[in-house]
């Protein structure tokens, strides 16, 4: 079995379906056709560029170039986490909390997987590192964004509850404990659901790709499992880090609830 190469013509056919959908959206006045076409164009440009970049990168295996790409991926993911917050932290924290916790979890888990589990040499071989990192960033990004948003939203709405506990002598960590647990739980639910339904409802994207590329299905399944476990670990670690730093930042050195450190989008 070998890979069937896609011609530009094949892709144009698929793109035609998107055009058709856009026309339908215009006809039904759904008002999403513009955004849909822009998104489709963006993904085309971004993915073709990424393909070109990866081609160069795979040939060079230069650590500096790889680090640069990894950094770009991380900063975009950090920006994305910030953009999804309804109430953001003021100052560098708005960007920093998400980016730092993603750095800790995604980079940590990726390096761990490359050195201990997959065991490629050198460990930063881009064929493995970049896709792995991309999958991890993309998924932990979701979890962290949901968890942080839950934390700040509930703290904002629950000011009276939190302060009632502070007034009776509770510490900051105790006063926000319930909210913190709730936010973390919400952040973990997507990956838990994905693991539970994998293979029954959905055929995960990575496994699909490997099968299309000609891998034996069982090997593809094993890789998919590896990725899912890594994503679960990364989301958990990243969520814990983000919610911990975020909740600490909501209180000052005298353990006062400082909602003025958030601003409404």
């Amino acid at each position, binding site marked *: 079995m070998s890979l069937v190469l896609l011609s530009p013509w094949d892709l144009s056919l698929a793109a035609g379906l998107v055009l058709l959908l856009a026309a339908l959206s215009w006809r039904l006045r759904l008002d999403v056709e513009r955004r849909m076409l822009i998104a489709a164009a963006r993904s085309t440009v971004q993915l073709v560029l990424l393909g070109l970049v990866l081609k160069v990168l795979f040939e060079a295996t230069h650590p500096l170039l790889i680090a640069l790409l990894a950094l770009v991926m991380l900063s975009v993911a950090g920006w994305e986490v910030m953009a999804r917050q309804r109430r953001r932290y003021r100052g560098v924290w708005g960007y920093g909390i998400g980016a730092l916790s993603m750095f800790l979890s995604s980079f940590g888990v990726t390096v761990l997987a490359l050195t201990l589990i997959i065991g490629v040499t050198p460990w930063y071989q881009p064929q493995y590192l970049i896709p792995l990192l991309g999958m991890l960033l993309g998924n932990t990004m979701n979890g962290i964004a949901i968890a942080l948003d839950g934390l700040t939203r509930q703290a904002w709405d629950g000011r009276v*509850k939190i302060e009632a506990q*502070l007034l009776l*002598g509770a510490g900051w960590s105790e006063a926000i404990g319930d909210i913190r647990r709730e936010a973390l739980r919400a952040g973990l639910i997507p990956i838990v659901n994905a693991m539970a339904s994998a293979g029954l409802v959905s055929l995960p994207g990575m496994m699909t790709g490997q099968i299309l590329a000609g891998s034996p299905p069982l090997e593809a399944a094993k890789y998919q499992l590896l990725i899912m476990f890594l994503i679960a670990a990364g989301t958990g670690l990243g969520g814990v880090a983000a919610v911990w730093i975020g909740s600490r930042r909501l209180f000052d050195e005298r353990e006062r609830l400082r909602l003025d450190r958030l601003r409404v989008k």
Partner: protein
Amino acid sequence: MTALRIAGLRPLVHATPLQPVDMDLDGGAIVLLSGPSGAGKSLLLRAIADLDPNAGEVFLDGAARSDMRPTEWRRRVGLLPAESGWWGERVSDHFPPPAGGAAEWLVPTLLSTLGFGTDVLDWEVLRLSTGERQRLALARLLANGPEALLLDEATANLDPANRERAEALIMEYRDQHGAPVLWVSHDPDQRARLATATGGRRLVIADHRLCPEDDA
């Protein structure tokens, strides 16, 4: 007996025009505070409890607030906010677990003084009325054993019978523990009545500073 001394205290939130406040309350002393809404009465109480950023210093029996952990400070100066917060599902989630010995009777006594049976502890918070919440918040605060009382409209939503119960309980607590009481009240009758009964001072916030309240 615990004395509360406030020195140059000023809330530092959204440019409050309130001038720095100095006030001395000996153990058992009462100050009844009033003023137009927005004058900064609640902000002053929050600043004393160190719940908002603020400048100045507060002493409890000569011990400076800044030398104390904020958790300890807030437990000792009991602030009863105008709006009470409830974080658990049932009323009992908001009271300390029953202790052994004489303290075991503390919460039931507080509750019955305010007109509740002990079954109130099993009630759901969502089903409480505003007045019930206010009385239960007072019981919850006193069960915590504060050494001073900062009361923000402690009886505003109560009918006359319950207001009397709450006032009596607060006065009894003050007598037993020698706690100074700083009481924000919108009700002129209440201020006059309590000041006469206890020899307390009446203060009003006017022109961003504290002045003695004149009888109209």
